[in-house]
């Protein structure tokens, strides 16, 4: 049984931001619920108020335009991303990462924004968003601010989002459309599992970027590389950026080794 909490399902953004400001730190936002309700169940989170964001007007769907880029909102699910034709055609790396996240029925419910605001080191969506130069648009009663994902994660389960704020939009810039990329995730089993190591590699206009999960306190971006760099340079950059731990799922050395294996494979596979 879950512990008790109050519940609100605001219909407007103003109402939602008002509740967040009022209950500062004592409220939790509910989107897919696939992390929040588990955290409440095991006692890791004890919110006084749970605020369902899915009824807020304008908080669903994915939109794409050359001027605005690709925009994902608080109720945009992982399967919404996988079903979106613009994502498939223009941002295949997002589909790659989404496809490796959990199981089908979780992808029906879990949201892209939930996957990044929880700031798990093993977030599957973060590697793609980091590579694609996405930005977070964060809102509160005080106003709105934009933070690039490269500056978004602050530690294990910590982000720049404050208690009275909501990550309201993820914007992937139009400039990243057409980027080629793949994601490789090491798991204990072939099916639904948390990542042991995840590596995304993107190539676009001569640039090469890596987004790496489960290999540091936060998902990380390795930037400043070029498509024509030799593989030794790229591997060295990846090795220099990661700082994995050993834990119940594998040792530190194995993580380091597998990051290198994935970087080498992806470098050859991403044409």
């Amino acid at each position: 049984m879950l512990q008790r909490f109050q519940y609100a399902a605001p219909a407007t953004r103003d109402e939602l931001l008002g509740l967040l400001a009022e209950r500062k730190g004592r409220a939790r936002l509910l989107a897919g619920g696939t992390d929040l309700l588990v955290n409440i169940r095991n006692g890791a989170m004890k919110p006084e108020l749970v605020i369902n964001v899915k009824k807020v007007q304008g908080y669903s769907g994915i939109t794409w335009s050359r001027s605005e880029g690709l925009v994902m909102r608080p109720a945009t699910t992982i399967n919404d991303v996988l079903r979106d034709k613009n994502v498939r055609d223009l941002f295949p790396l997002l589909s790659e990462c989404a496809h490796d996240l959990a199981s089908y029925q979780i992808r029906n419910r879990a949201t892209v924004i939930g996957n990044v605001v929880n700031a798990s080191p093993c977030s599957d969506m973060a590697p793609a968003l980091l590579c694609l130069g996405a930005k977070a648009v964060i809102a509160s009663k005080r106003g709105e601010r934009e933070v690039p994902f490269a500056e978004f994660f602050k530690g294990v389960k910590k982000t720049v989002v404050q208690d009275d704020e909501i990550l309201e939009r993820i914007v992937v810039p139009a400039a990243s459309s057409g980027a080629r990329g793949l994601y490789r995730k090491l798991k204990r089993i072939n099916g639904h599992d948390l990542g042991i190591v995840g590596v995304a590699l993107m190539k676009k206009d001569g640039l090469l970027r890596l987004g790496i999960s489960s290999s540091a306190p936060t998902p990380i971006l390795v930037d400043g590389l070029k498509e024509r760099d030799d593989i030794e340079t790229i591997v060295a950059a990846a090795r220099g950026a990661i700082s994995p731990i050993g834990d119940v799922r594998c040792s530190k050395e194995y993580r380091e080794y597998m990051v290198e294996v994935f970087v080498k494979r992806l470098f050859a596979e991403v044409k």
Partner: protein
Amino acid sequence: MRVHVTVNGRVFERDVEEHKTLLRFLREDLGFTGTKEGCGAGECGACTIFLDGKTVNSCMVLAVEADGSAIETIEGEAKDGRLSVIQEAFDRHHAVQCGFCTGGMVMSVRELLQRTPKPSVDQIKEGIEGNFCRCTGYQQIIEAVLDASGQKELADKGGLKHA
């Protein structure tokens, strides 16, 4: 909070506590005990149901979130006393042993066949990746899904023969 839901075509209206999961609401308040609680954390899929046409783990949905929704559970799978095509195939291929996973498994298979009427073995494995079965080792379930999707020959060739 007052909640209205439709379950397998029947309308229900109940008062429910805010912190109650949809799974517990279905089982304890409405009596739909075919939906099971395994892990309670989205790992095992025994609680899989349809919520407004999409499969979800009902252990990770609040009952209050489902207000106004149409829900389908394993109890709605057989129609007019007749098993569905999926249930018959599960029966033929011995894809049920203890039965604890079966309700959720059938829900995931139904969603898979709705979007992929003739799935490959790999597509079947992916479709049921969120549903654990600790008895069958999955082989019989995969064969049952092949059979239910009109691929009986493949089902019969699928390694072990069970029927």
